[in-house]
């Protein structure tokens, strides 16, 4: 007999398991309970990619519906957030590609893999300091896979396992990419005249 969800000693995993059982039995309320903690983060990710609040909301909505439909294929050992994150990123990419094809709304950047670079566009609104803008510009020069791993680690605060799941690689590759991303970044700053004194503060 499943313990009540409100049980104080219940771990997050145990709660997820019980919710998953209910969802698979066809309970949409349980699904909303499961995904509610992540919807704002997912929405933020979608906005950063498609740069439109309404589109982003539609993407999150579609992603959550897709997730609900395919819940039977959800592996218990996988994280709910990483699973939904991938769906949102894929749907955002699809929308961007569709817009690009239909020229409904030309985008400034043409890269398929939009992660950190998608946030660069917010620089003016974000009013970053000179040093932060400089660091952001250097991050933008990195390869997509390095930008992605930096964002997932330091912006999304995900674990190596979660990043590996999103990037569809093993944990060793994640560690290696993260290390290389920082090394390349360090190298870019060190060889740049403007970067003089960056590491002294």
């Amino acid at each position, binding site marked *: 007999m499943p313990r009540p969800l409100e049980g104080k000693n219940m771990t997050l995993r145990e709660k997820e398991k019980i919710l998953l059982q209910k969802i698979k039995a066809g309970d949409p309320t349980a699904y909303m309970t499961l995904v509610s903690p992540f919807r704002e983060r997912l929405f933020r990710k979608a906005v950063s990619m498609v740069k439109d609040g309404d589109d982003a909301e539609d993407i999150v909505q579609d992603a959550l519906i897709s997730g609900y439909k395919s819940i039977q294929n959800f592996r218990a050992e996988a994280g709910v957030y990483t699973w939904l994150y991938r769906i949102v990123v894929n749907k955002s990419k699809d929308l961007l590609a569709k817009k690009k094809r239909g020229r409904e709304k030309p985008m400034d950047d043409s890269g398929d893999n939009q992660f950190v670079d998608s946030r660069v566009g917010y620089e003016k609104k974000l009013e970053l300091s000179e040093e932060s803008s400089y660091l952001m510009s250097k991050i933008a020069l990195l390869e997509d896979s390095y930008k992605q791993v930096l964002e997932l680690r330091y912006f999304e605060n995900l674990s190596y396992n979660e990043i590996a799941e999103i990037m569809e690689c093993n944990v060793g590759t994640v560690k290696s990419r993260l290390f290389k991303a920082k090394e390349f970044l*360090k190298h870019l700053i060190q060889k740049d005249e403007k970067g003089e004194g960056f590491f002294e503060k």
Partner: protein
Amino acid sequence: MKNRFMNLKDWFRAQYPGLFPEDTDSVVLENKICSLFQHIKEKEDTILPRMSNDFDVRMLNLLESVSIDRPTEKTSFSFRDLIENRTVQYSFSAVMAVSLVFVLLNRSQSETTFTKNDSAGVVIEQNNYQYEPTSIDLSEPYQKRVLLDHLRSAPGSVYGLRELELYYEKTGRDAAAEELHLLIESIER
């Protein structure tokens, strides 16, 4: 070589960062990346659009009319599935490794007993009968004459050949018997 060594070193540093003392620049950089993303996150909270208040209600209504898909079951097993199967890959590698070890062991053992020169699979033996007569029908007249002279000089050779001819006839080897008959005739001429 240096590059390969560097890659290995980087890999170890990435996998086991605790074993390597981090240089100051890396620590400073990591701190600045953390601060940058934290700063962006805080700023984004103030400038990014918000989700609609009725999002949850809308979602729940939509979900009421959505049915959950059945779990996808793989019915067909393709060749790609087979070669992408980790167990199959590991098994194949293991079999190949065992075969390699077996071949290497066999080669190393045979090297100690096999003393002949490497002949690349061709059997080299001194079995060259090119200049030796094997039949009375040899087209070489000199060889034929030498053989006949030798048999004529040996008493009892004709008797022996006749016995052999009879033996071949009895055992059904007519071709050999015929050949011996021709040989005896040639001796007696």
